[in-house]
């Protein structure tokens, strides 16, 4: 239980209730309370307090979610470096000859992973080499901006679907169906994109709305089923993923979706008026800005809107919300619909922004990566943006790394998985870095609630 150890009066400078070294006591009242009583009655001075260090130092040394996230990323990168070393033949050979050339072994141990990470950054953000080339020759500017452009393209659907999943988490619903909602949004946007003929100023907004509506309907289904019948949203959304995957295959083999003259499952392309404006000769397009606007809107929504307030209350303690007169059913339905809407926008962004048509298996792993970046961003909209950009850097840069250093692209997947592994096990990070424990509530978002 969360509120067991509560002694703020005794420890006035501490951000959360201290649980350090408090072993589980059998009686809930146990350690909490001398401080509690002091706070309550105000009778007598609080028990002796040692002079606490400044707040910011405590904040860093405490296992708060930000510190844990940063350290999880750092640890995963170190882990990846070790993995590169032990799978790199040149490093291993150098260590085999360590007696003859000790310096070579040590320097390779550092330079091989450093080169790998360097080429990830060069391939996803900015390559000093192509920058130098462009400046000296005045040509090849495309190569300078292309990595960053690709990173934004890769991050856009992750941001949208990730915020969708995060909003669900914050409201106490586990939307595992971003995959299916992504497809629903993509199909709706696609249909409006190739079937409707309108000027771009009307057509494009219509495509966006269609994508949003497609995803919202796909999210509404598990929502209403949960509210009306108690069907667990995890099961329903997972099953709906298969429904939409197969619906996609079906539609791609039928008119009007299938590309004429094709036997493969490939769709028609959206009209030029249904395509996102993009930077010249780059794939970066307006949908990235839409994603950032959605992040700002979601952040505002949670903090300032009454509906967002009820989402947070129901997500944190549905019983208290119910007792205070909130409707859990309403929040569940709306949260899943909004969550689905954002995943649908992700599908729309890919169709209208970069792909322009869809094929069988469209959407790949976006649905599940959305869950991952939601966790990585601690279910906060701007956190999801940061997490999505990190993942996009690893995705896009990983390809460059494979080309330049021969290290497998799979390594970046391992690093991504390791980051999540460490974030999901804050206890481990806490132990490794000897952080002070923080309030139980701070990290619980990640772990609670699968029982529904």
């Amino acid at each position, binding site marked *: 239980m969360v509120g067991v150890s509560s002694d703020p009066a005794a420890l006035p400078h501490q951000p959360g209730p201290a649980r350090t070294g408090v072993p589980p006591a059998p009686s809930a009242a146990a350690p909490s309370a001398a*401080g509690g*009583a002091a706070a309550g009655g105000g*009778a007598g001075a609080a028990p002796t307090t040692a002079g606490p260090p400044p707040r910011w130092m405590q904040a860093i040394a405490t296992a708060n979610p930000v510190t844990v996230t940063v350290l999880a990323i750092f640890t995963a990168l170190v882990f990846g470096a070790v993995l590169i070393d032990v799978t790199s033949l040149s490093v291993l050979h150098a260590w085999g000859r360590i007696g003859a050339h000790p310096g070579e072994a040590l320097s390779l141990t550092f330079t091989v992973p450093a080169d790998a990470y360097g080429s990830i950054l060069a391939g996803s953000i900015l390559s000093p080499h192509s920058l130098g080339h462009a400046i000296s020759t005045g040509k090849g500017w495309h190569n300078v901006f292309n990595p960053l452009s690709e990173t934004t393209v890769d991050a856009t659907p992750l941001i949208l679907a990730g915020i969708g999943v995060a909003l669900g988490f914050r409201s106490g619903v586990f939307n595992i169906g971003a995959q299916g909602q992504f497809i629903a949004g993509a199909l709706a946007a696609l249909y409006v994109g190739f079937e409707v003929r309108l000027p771009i100023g009307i057509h494009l907004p219509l495509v966006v709305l269609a994508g949003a509506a497609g995803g919202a309907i796909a999210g509404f289904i598990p929502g209403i089923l949960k509210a009306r019948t108690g069907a667990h949203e995890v099961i329903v959304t997972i099953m709906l993923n298969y429904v939409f995957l197969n619906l996609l295959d079906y539609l791609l083999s039928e008119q009007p979706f299938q590309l004429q003259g094709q036997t493969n499952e490939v769709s028609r392309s959206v009209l030029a008026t249904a395509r996102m404006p993009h930077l010249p000769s780059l794939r970066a397009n307006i949908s990235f800005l839409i994603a950032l606007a959605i992040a700002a809107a979601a952040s505002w929504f949670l903090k300032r809107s*009454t509906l967002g307030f009820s989402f947070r209350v129901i997500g944190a303690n549905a019983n208290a919300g119910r007792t205070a*007169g909130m409707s859990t059913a309403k929040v569940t339905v709306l949260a899943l619909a909004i969550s689905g809407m954002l995943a649908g926008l992700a599908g729309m962004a890919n169709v209208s922004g970069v792909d322009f048509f869809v094929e069988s298996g469209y959407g790949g792993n976006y649905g599940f990566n959305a869950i991952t970046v939601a966790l990585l961003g601690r279910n906060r909209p701007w956190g999801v943006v940061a997490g999505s950009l990190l993942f996009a850097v690893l995705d896009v840069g990983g390809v460059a790394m494979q080309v330049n250093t021969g290290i497998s692209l799979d390594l970046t997947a391992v690093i991504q998985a390791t980051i999540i592994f460490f974030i999901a096990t804050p206890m481990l990070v806490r132990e490794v870095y000897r952080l002070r424990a923080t309030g139980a509530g701070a990290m619980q978002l990640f772990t609670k609630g699968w029982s529904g």
Partner: protein
Amino acid sequence: MRLELDSITKRFGALVANDEVSLTVEPGEIHALLGENGAGKSTLMNVLFGLLHADSGEVCLDGTPVRFADPGAAVRRGIGMVHQHFMLVPVFTVAENVVLGFEPTRPAGLLDRRRARADVRRLSSEFGLEVDPDAVVESLSVGVQQRVEILKALQRDAQLLILDEPTAVLTPQETEALFKIMRSLRASGRSILFITHKLKEVLEVADRITVMRLGRVVGSTTPAETDEASLAAMMVGRDVELVVHKEPASPGDAALELAGLTVVDERGVIVVDGVDLTVRGGEIVALAGVQGNGQTELAEAISGLRAVSAGSIRFGGSEVTRSSPRSRIRAGLAHVPEDRQEDGLVLGMTIAENLILDQYDRAPFARHGVLDLARVHDNGEAKIEEFDIRPAAAGLAVGTLSGGNQQKVIVARELSRPVKVLLASQPTRGLDVGSIEYVHKRIVAARDEGAAVLIVSSELDEVLALGDRIAVMYRGRITGIVTPDVGREAIGLMMAGVEEHELPETVLAGAERDETTGWSV
């Protein structure tokens, strides 16, 4: 067994939970350890029992220093503990539960049930603990389950028995029976450490009393040398009013009417069985009863959190039987829920946010679906001031407050709208004396402003102190509605299922002599 705790100190970070605590329990003594929640009693017991390790100080048994690595070691040295929450396997029989963990076996590791039963019979008759060894534990009443816990300790040959708040779940009659058992254990030379916060009980049964406050022993005395008022003052550190001051009620119109109210729970069991009850504006009706007799479900039905199977609920003449919790709140219901952390608060959110949980979407806190954060904050500051919530920081997460201050947040929220009906379930459970005083004062003030107040409490003292009328609930039915002057024995009998009209004359006659206005803490 003689137990000595010598200068036990236990720190949690900067918090000193036990500060040089010393205490001696003589053989054949009932020693009461008295203190408010958070005084450090439980920490001390956990140190004694090997669940925590002291930073300094020493535990001696019969003069030998001991240091238990775990509870098992303490049990082997003859210390038994009866926890507030029983540790029994509900589907096992009494005999099986008693031997669990220390099973007598026959060759080849077979369980010797016959010996287990014989053990239970022998111990039962020796100490007057009537229990059927073959009864399944879940079919037993709470009082009998407690006896099974005591038998468990005795079967392991406990010479020192620790009873942690043993009377919290008992009727007055069951409490008397427990005291009888405690005295017979004392007569056999065993020592008992009796942890409680109830003054009356301490004075009745203890040989010696040690009082703790804020982690320190603040005094040691005997029942002969002290009384309730001075014990309370020792416990709290200042003089405490043990009596709730209230004028006689001047009831107005019926504000809350329950007619034939019936509630069936998830298992299909009838938990509230045709309850008729009317609470008028300006009066406090206290609903007494041992926990688990349908009071919780009744309160949930009134607040709209639980569906009603039959009967009706009316607020001020208008039917709300099928209304949502929200519309009941709008109709003037204030609800202090039984479990404040589970149902009353969002612990991770701030004090200010928790204070608007039921009004977040209305003016002045919101306009057109947008929160006015400045107003929310100002409201938080104002309520903190008005209700003396500490620490006074509206932006602090409610989970970091003490229980008493958490309850003040709920009371502040519920009483800050116009109240027609105040429903408060266990309003002072687990609170320190100062907060209890405060909450009681606020409840009486709400009554005086004309609200109909229904208090659900399993603390008989609270029921007697607050109620203008007392309704007693047993197995989902109201066994009677009486005034406080019938006395605690009559109410105790009704809590055990005796109907009002069946009460023996002698009990009612005895009420004249009974002192009923004081409440112990």
